């Protein structure tokens, strides 16, 4: 009994700091309401699969691409989201989100502490990396990638050369990740880099990791749509859809972008002064490229940079600030853990729907016909107004072959807008009053069925 208890307490004591920070972050994250439009269609998709016990392989939500096949690359993530919603409503979704962010934080702290980096260097690095990651704290399957990426990184960074039992965890890890979210491709790339570096550096002793990497690659094909999955994820990385804010290149004059730039400058600056290792170059360069392609990918670079920045900063800054004694660390961690568990009860019971046209739902429910809606409100309508198929929504991929271009031509009032309006037989629009189309339709006598007093939305129908 005593023999078994000692390692557990030792493990807990060694992880008191990561546990404490993860618990604190959980408390913050669980209190945030859902705000993202895509959450709704992810939930609707997961709910459909749970209800029907089959994969949803074709569109059932839109009027424009109904029946079209679309990717099911996040099926398990969608089911997990829908399951948490079914279990505890929006509080369940918030708890799942906070849990995944806490997992990410736990491993991020462990990464930041590599090489004995003191807390006063590792903690600001962790906080900065988490602030950069905030852009991905939306209730979507990408949260699973947020949690699994640092977990993988921590595992790989701590692996000894040669065979380790921990290698056996990687194939099931990738099997799970592949079915949760397309971000597994980044993980696979990272694994390939570690395997290549292991072979180059350790020669024969790098073989077990290389063999494991091959096995991981193989298991990623064990999913409902093996080839389609990799293709969709690859397109996101190589051809980011720039019309979506999260896919815009990082802007270093925004708060998150400034922190991202600080990580780049930190890596370059400390490397200029202290040098680095081959693994760091092999790992950080592709992740930097990825981060520069789209701001939602900044987090990968920042998480990985944390591992190398900490030790170099510790070497460059000679200050000595004492660590908290273990006897204090452990109770603090336990107290924060208990507080985190208790904070589940503070999870918001409703999402924040102020940016959505909630006031228009009753009006829309009372009518029929083809509805042309704002892109950003499509997911919300799928969930809140299932009886009215949407024109377009955040799943953008099914709409790439024509509908997205037509949508843009319509709302921007391109010369073909009359023809498109007739071709799609649009009888009603739900748009921002600022849209040129909304302005033109009003001028042309379309009736205002409902309008937000704050000027956020307007419902117009054909006269």
């Amino acid at each position, binding site marked *: 009994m005593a023999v078994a208890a000692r390692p557990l307490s030792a493990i807990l004591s060694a992880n008191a700091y990561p546990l404490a920070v993860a618990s604190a972050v959980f408390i913050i994250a669980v209190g945030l309401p859902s705000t993202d439009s895509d959450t709704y269609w992810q939930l609707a998709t997961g709910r459909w699969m749970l209800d029907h016990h089959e994969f949803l392989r074709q569109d059932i939500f839109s009027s424009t691409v109904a029946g079209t096949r679309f990717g099911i690359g996040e099926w398990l993530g969608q089911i997990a989201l829908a399951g948490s919603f079914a279990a505890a409503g929006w509080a369940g979704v918030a708890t799942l989100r906070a849990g995944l962010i806490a997992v990410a934080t736990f491993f991020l702290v462990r990464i930041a502490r590599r090489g004995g980096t003191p807390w006063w260097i590792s903690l600001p690095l962790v906080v900065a990396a988490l602030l950069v990651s905030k852009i991905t704290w939306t209730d979507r399957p990408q949260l699973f990638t947020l949690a699994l990426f640092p977990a993988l990184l921590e595992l790989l960074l701590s692996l000894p050369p040669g065979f380790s039992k921990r290698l056996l965890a990687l194939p099931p890890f990738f099997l799970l990740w592949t079915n949760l979210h397309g971000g597994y491709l980044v993980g696979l790339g990272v694994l390939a880099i570690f395997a290549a570096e292991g072979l*180059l550096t350790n020669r024969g002793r790098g073989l077990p990791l290389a063999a494991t990497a091959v096995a991981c690659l193989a298991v990623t094909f064990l999913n409902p749509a093996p080839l389609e999955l990799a293709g969709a994820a690859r397109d996101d990385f*190589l*051809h*980011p859809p720039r019309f979506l804010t999260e896919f*815009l*290149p*990082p*802007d*270093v*004059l925004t708060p998150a972008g400034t922190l991202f*730039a600080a990580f*780049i*400058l930190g*890596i*370059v*600056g400390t*490397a*200029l*002064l*202290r*040098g*680095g*290792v*081959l693994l*760091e*170059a092999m790992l*950080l*360069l592709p992740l*930097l*490229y990825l981060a*520069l*392609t789209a701001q939602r990918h900044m987090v990968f670079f920042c998480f990985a940079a944390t591992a190398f920045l900490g030790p170099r900063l510790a070497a460059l800054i000679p200050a000595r600030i004492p660590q908290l004694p273990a006897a204090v660390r452990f109770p603090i961690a336990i107290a924060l853990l208990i507080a985190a568990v208790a904070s589940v009860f503070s999870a918001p019971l409703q999402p924040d729907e102020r940016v959505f046209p909630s006031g228009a739902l009753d009006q829309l429910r009372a009518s029929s016909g083809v509805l042309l809606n704002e892109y950003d409100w499509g997911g919300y309508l799928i969930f809140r107004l299932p009886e009215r198929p949407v024109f377009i929504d955040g799943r953008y991929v099914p709409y790439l072959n024509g509908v997205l271009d037509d949508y843009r031509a319509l709302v*921007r*009032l*391109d*010369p073909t*807008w009359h023809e498109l309006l007739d071709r799609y037989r649009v009888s009603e629009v739900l748009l921002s*009053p*600022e849209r*040129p189309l*909304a*302005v*033109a339709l009003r*001028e042309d006598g379309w009736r205002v069925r409902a309008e937000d007093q704050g000027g956020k939305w307007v419902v117009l129908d054909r006269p």
Partner: protein
Amino acid sequence: MSWSLPLLVGATFGALSTLATVGDSDVFWHLAVGRQTLAGGLERLDHFSWTANGTVVLTDQWLGQVAWYVVYVAAEWRGVILLRALLVAAIVTLIIGTALWSGRRPWIAVLASFPAIVLTRFSWTERPELMGLACFAALLLVLRLAQERPRVLFAAPALLLIWANLHASFALGLAVLFIVCGEMALHRGPARRIAVGVIVASVVATVFTPSGIAIWTSSGGHFLAPPRGIQEEGVPDVTEPYGLVFGLVIAAVMTTALLSRRALPRDVALLLPVLFVSLTAARHTPFFAVASAPYLAEHAPTAIARTARRFGLSLPKVSAASVIPSGRIDLATAAIGIVAVLATSLVARGEPSLDAYPVGALEALPPGPGLLNEYGWGGFLIWYAPKTPVFIDGRLFLYVPTVVDDYRSVVGVHPDWQAVIARRDIRALLLKPADAGAVRAAELGWRVLSSSDSYVLLARP
């Protein structure tokens, strides 16, 4: 050090640059301002638009504008092409020369400079901006030379005096000089007095402009709040060709820093601020590429050799330049280079490329105020249709916020677009046919005065 190779490569790129025709929209208003300055002295109020007429304008590029106009008067568009080619040649020469000074291995210097040369390609426009880039490259050379002979730093205040009158990018130069001199003052005892003196003299030099002390705020808008709606002020995008080159430069510096020997604090002091500035906007990306070329020339070979050694590979040794420096040979090379640039400029296409502009609408433009024009065509209209003042043009900050808001409202058919037309008494629109404002105005009965695939000129009924 022999300058023949940098001069040769510089002249080659200068000559190649003459293949590009003149055509940037801002060229035209810069020339118009230069003409105005030469004719009647420095004008501090706007006279080209009808929406900001009489408003105070920035004069931070007056010398550059005058220089462009002088060469235009001397040799028309071929003069403009010649000046551009000479500036390109100077920039390339300075980049390679600085890299060669640092690395001492000629072909490595050329290789290390190549990404910087490629990136500066996007700035090879006929604007004072190109002069600013040349000044930046010159400053880097001064800073490199000053490592061995600190007194060379005395050239910096003179350079900044000229730069501050050419283009607002002098602010970056002043900041870089401040940081590098500060580092020098901290670490190098004997040079401390020179560094402090140069900083003070440089700060004072930048005030000798028509704007006086206000010149320091003129570049703030570009560096701290770049107008993202303008393509060149957009965020660097690595999925675009220029962005990919920029990304490669960052990757090269990062890899070199990780795998080479440790750099000196002055390298950090120089590279980090310039990297941040370059990350802010696409038009700033050449600065980091130019600044990093000497570092790469000096350290990249070590990083490559170390990596190769680690994998048991042996690379051929690239020895330092053994050519005995000869001032005469350098002078001869410079003369040949200038002749080559001059000759190619003479045979270059002497007229600007106006394919992107509404040339066909010029005859039908109504004189006097009342025209709302496409933003990108403002400069063109200032030069080619002086009797029709513009609504807006490339002098963006002159029009922020009210004119820009009204422009967007009409072109984008915002809810108040008709009210803006009435309030401003807009009587004609010169827009692209697919602009919502043009589409809607035509539907509402505005008369088409002139049109083509690329423009439409509409008159209010």
